[in-house]
């Protein structure tokens, strides 16, 4: 269920890629059939920009990956989706948000350690504050006052990114059954990170797995329908997922967290009334 965050990006494509196909009389806009609506200068410029940004990933085990993509697809529609939908109907949204917050608070060690390993002081500091605030004021992490009140966002760092920062390449693209898209390096990272996740140390193992399933179900309940949208939007869902995954990771590794405020030259505050 790892690909929920990839899928979510498609949901919010709501604000994206609109276009007008009809050429209504009152609309002097470029009609889609007018292929020369933009000069070649614009095409050349943005073509270069896009080509530079394009990231590719070797996919030597594509037959396996496509097969696993198919398995995950079937699993999603036959198992995950009905379970998550039922769960979503039974558990009210605020409760689901609480559970999500709780698990996110629990995995603070993963993000904190990786911030440190990458030498990201401010982010590590932010994670520590979040943990402190949410564990106390947020009642064991069920609430997220650190974000709601002070706009402290979690730092989305993981071992895969840390290894990339240390210079390790992607390796190649892998699709794992149930876990979804990954690369060789990110797979190593995921395994490494799991040692920092307290849920791993719950004994006996069945309970630990059970907790993880609850976590995944709960997370999934916020993303119902996103995979369907993603599939509908793509021409070849497998290639689309691969492309989106590798681009998404690239951005995470680059770590452009916040846009720079042109007035102050400092990172722009996401939350205007930030206090901490």
């Amino acid at each position: 269920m790892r690909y929920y965050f990839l899928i979510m990006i498609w949901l919010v494509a709501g604000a994206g890629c609109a276009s007008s196909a009809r050429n209504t009389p009152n609309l002097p806009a470029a009609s889609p059939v007018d292929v020369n609506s933009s000069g070649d200068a614009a095409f050349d410029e943005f073509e270069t920009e896009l080509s530079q940004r394009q990231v590719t990933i070797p996919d030597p085990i594509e037959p396996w990956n496509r097969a696993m993509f198919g398995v995950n697809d079937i699993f999603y529609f036959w198992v995950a989706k009905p379970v998550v939908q039922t769960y979503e109907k039974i558990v009210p949204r605020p409760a689901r948000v609480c559970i999500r917050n709780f698990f996110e608070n629990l995995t603070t060690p993963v993000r904190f350690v990786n911030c440190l390993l990458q030498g990201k002081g401010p982010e590590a500091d932010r994670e520590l504050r979040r943990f402190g605030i949410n564990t106390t004021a947020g009642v064991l992490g069920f609430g997220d006052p650190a974000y709601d009140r002070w706009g402290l966002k979690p730092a989305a760092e993981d071992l895969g990114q840390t290894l990339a920062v240390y210079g390790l390449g992607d390796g190649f693209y892998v699709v794992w059954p149930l876990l979804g898209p990954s690369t060789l390096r990110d797979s190593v990272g995921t395994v490494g990170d799991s040692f920092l996740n307290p849920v791993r140390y719950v004994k006996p193992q069945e309970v630990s797995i059970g907790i993880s399933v609850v976590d995944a179900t709960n997370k999934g309940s916020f993303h119902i329908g996103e995979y369907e949208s993603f599939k509908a939007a793509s021409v070849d869902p497998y290639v689309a997922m691969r492309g989106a995954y590798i681009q998404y990771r690239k951005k995470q590794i680059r770590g452009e967290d916040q846009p720079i405020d042109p007035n102050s030259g400092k990172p722009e505050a996401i939350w205007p009334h930030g206090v901490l």
Partner: protein
Amino acid sequence: MTVRKLIIGIEGELMGISVKQKVMTRITSIWCVVLVLLVLGHNVNADEKYSNGAIKPPEAKSGSAALDVNDTNELWWSRWDAFVRDPNDPNELLEAKWNAIVTVLQNKELDQELKKKIMDKIMGPVFDTGLMAKLALGRTHWPKLTAPQQKRFTELFVERLKNIYLDKITLYNNEKVLFKHAMQEKNSIHIPVVLISNDKEIAILFKFHKMDETGGSKMNEYWKIYDVEIEGVSVLLVYRAQFDDILNRGGVKELFFQLEKPPTQ
């Protein structure tokens, strides 16, 4: 009996005594704990999340009173443009358009189809669809298509994008939207937008470029979007990866076959 089992299960866990319980019993016991905690957490969360007013629906600035439901002619929706003070400022353009969209979405009297039609009219002109289609194929593949093929491709690509986008935007459910400062690139302007969905921030980047000509009487068609990035993922590049793959495998014929068949469900 079941309750007794559960209690033994929990106690066994806490005291470290190895009680041979069935797997299901253990999972259920954890569930009970989680459920109790979430009931407790529920109240805390509800109080904190909604009392400080952090998550509020964005206010539509444009007067919704002017909305005449039955008037489907092109006049009333075009009034949104009157709220753009400086049409050459893409930030303002985007915000005004967004406010218009929100007003349409929140109007309960309009049916879905009409909403889509209106939104298409509001947002459609902001997108440079011709350029988007061209860029989706890129320099390697676009010139390979004959002129009629290019035309057909643009139609199919645009139609697909439009349907998906209009379907998705109707899912909008009062998420908070923050418009950030525009960033000047070489010949384009990037506007970062933060959408807060389910209390999570999602970064969207609209990339505008300046059209060479003003394009008719409407000044606000001056800036047009040529790409959208969501969490750093360029929509165009995701399409380009797919088109590259299809063209390398099966050529132009395969491309049109794939595009013409209805989207996979």
